[in-house]
């Protein structure tokens, strides 16, 4: 295997990982923009998406319906969390709410452990099987990787259109930019916050479905993803969903290439070292605006 195709293989591996981190990071961003809360239960949405889809497939539903059902169910969970916790606790400090999200993530994990069990499960491959691989300029990838990349790209595109070109999306951005002004303009801020939770839960749920055949799904998979996704969100710049994509891909690709140079045990070190360095040089992230947080933590 020559070095060119080897590099491509690393790059593809990095992009696969990175796109998963990116979806989690987008989820962080949506909720952060609308509410100022960093939702550390974001990884649990991914886990729930995979778990529910696997169960629906076992009930005999076709794959596409199972995925749609899982996304819907996780979306409902997201709404429910917002309505039952964050809406009521709005008068607490942002720090309190962040700690509540950590608590919720533990609760969701435990519930998943009891509803399902400790076993590892996975969805069938959307196309092909465990052994099929697609050759690409000397590198080889699983067809499922294309599903992951394709759905992430589609989601990012749709989200972009939604936030930029629809009234609802603009209203949501207005909430993020200046809640008081948005309220005066007649935007229902609490509903926008629920929508933000719904969207980021649905995103997480979808990610959980498309990555399940590759990474497998089990009740503890959420927390590590949340940490990586958080790093990606910070690296890209909090408050900007598109920056999250950049951040996620960067973290993933860095990890992959770190493996080529260092023992694999150090790949987290490499990724987080770059994150720290980036934060020293640009505390607001690569694409974030300085002082952006001040507006939201009113």
């Amino acid at each position, binding site marked *: 295997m020559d*070095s060119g195709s080897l590099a491509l293989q690393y790059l593809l591996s990095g992009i*696969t990982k990175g796109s998963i981190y990116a979806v989690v990071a987008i989820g962080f961003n949506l909720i952060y923009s609308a509410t100022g809360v960093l939702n550390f239960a974001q990884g649990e949405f991914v886990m729930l998406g995979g778990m529910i889809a696997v169960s629906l497939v076992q009930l005999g539903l076709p794959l596409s319906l199972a995925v749609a059902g899982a996304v819907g169910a996780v979306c409902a969970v997201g709404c429910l969390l917002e309505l039952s916790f964050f809406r009521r606790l709005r008068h607490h400090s942002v720090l309190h709410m962040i700690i509540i999200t950590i608590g919720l993530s533990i609760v969701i994990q435990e519930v998943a452990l009891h509803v399902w*069990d400790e076993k590892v499960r996975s969805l069938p491959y959307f196309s092909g099987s*465990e052994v099929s691989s697609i050759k690409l300029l000397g590198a080889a990838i699983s067809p499922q990787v294309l599903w992951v990349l394709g759905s992430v790209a589609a989601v990012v595109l749709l989200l972009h259109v939604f936030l930029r070109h629809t009234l609802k999306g603009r209203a949501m951005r207005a909430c993020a930019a200046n809640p008081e002004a948005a309220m005066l303009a007649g935007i229902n801020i609490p509903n926008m916050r629920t929508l933000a939770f719904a969207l980021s839960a649905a995103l997480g749920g979808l990610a959980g479905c498309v990555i399940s055949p590759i990474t497998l799904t089990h009740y503890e998979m959420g927390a590590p993803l949340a940490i990586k996704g958080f790093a990606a969100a910070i690296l890209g710049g909090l408050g900007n969903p598109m920056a999250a994509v950049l951040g996620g891909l960067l973290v993933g690709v860095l990890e*992959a290439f770190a493996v080529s140079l260092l023992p694999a045990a150090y790949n987290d070190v490499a990724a987080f070292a770059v994150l720290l360095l980036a934060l020293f040089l640009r505390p607001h992230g690569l694409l974030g605006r300085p002082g952006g947080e001040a507006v939201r933590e009113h």
Partner: protein
Amino acid sequence: MKISRMLLVGSVSALLTALPQASMAAPAETVKIGAIFSVTGPASFLGAPEEKTVRMLADQINARGGVNGRRIQVIIKDSGGSPEKAVSFAKQLIEEDKVLAIIGPSTSGETMQIKALCEENQMILVSCAAAESIVNPVAKYVFKTPQKDSQAVTWIYRTMKAQGITKIAVLTGNDGFGAAGKKQLEDLAKTEGIEIVANEVYDKAATDLTDILTKVKGTPGVQAVVNWSIVPAQSIVAKNMRQIGLNVPLFQSHGFGNLKYVQQAGAAAEGTLFPAGRLLVVDELPDTHPQKQLLATYKKDYETLYKEDVSTFGGHAYDAFMIVIEALRRAEKPDRAAVRDAIENLKGFVGTAGIFNFSPTDHTGLDLDAFEMLTVKGGRFVLYKK
């Protein structure tokens, strides 16, 4: 005055020492056996079948009238795979429950944390974890039932040599099991004439290993991959290898002995080679094999009761529990020192992992024959034939 006080102290202490004995010989005649398993948490695939197995066995024994007329009460603690919890549960079982013996813990890391504690308190510990260091150096009260890592490595290396493989890549998880396996793989490579050309450790929570396998693919001369872990990554390695087109044989540790991993890896698991006890291939054993009947019964009972496939891990708890029960039967009284001596003198005891021959210097009691080389064919485990 002095004499009366001495008398008082004497009688109180006599009473105190007499009390536990009195409660032990209570009319209920119950013998308590403690167990620490990681029923939940990252090592739950070990602990969950272990817990189920021990509950099933205890019920079976009590239904048959117990051991020498004594009922067996099992106290199971879920450590969640955490060594800290294992330590506090061990203390609880020793000091509060005053059990006869402790079965478990499920993982090597937990076992090593409580090895000294049990030895100090003269508490019998029969671990279900594999690491060599549990029984080497030998602690008087500590035993274990899984085969040794070094025996598994020896089997893997000898199978490789038979296939003409000399250059390999070694991948290990960053947990206790992975670290212990890495050491054995490195130590035995030279004596068995194997060269490790790539050696990588991955995070035990890893969900994608294509980058590490890309590195292996880019390393010239790799003829086979050995993966040593007890985590879902075992299935991920198999899948990722096929997906990036790394088509060399994959060897796994005896931690692969759970059909679940094969199902997770699907077609990618086909041809995976690993050493394991005979429980997984019981149907292929001749009827004359000494383990045949025991294995078939355990498999049938477990699968009927719990509606899930039997695994070698549950088998380790089977062996640990039955060894204590057999020793208790031979010792005739629930006296810890006598039961310990009885375990150490067990010879030719048929278990799920093999035939145990304990001695004062060998607290595992299994030799190389306890393993077979297995492979995956048509989604099932079968004996590997050259």
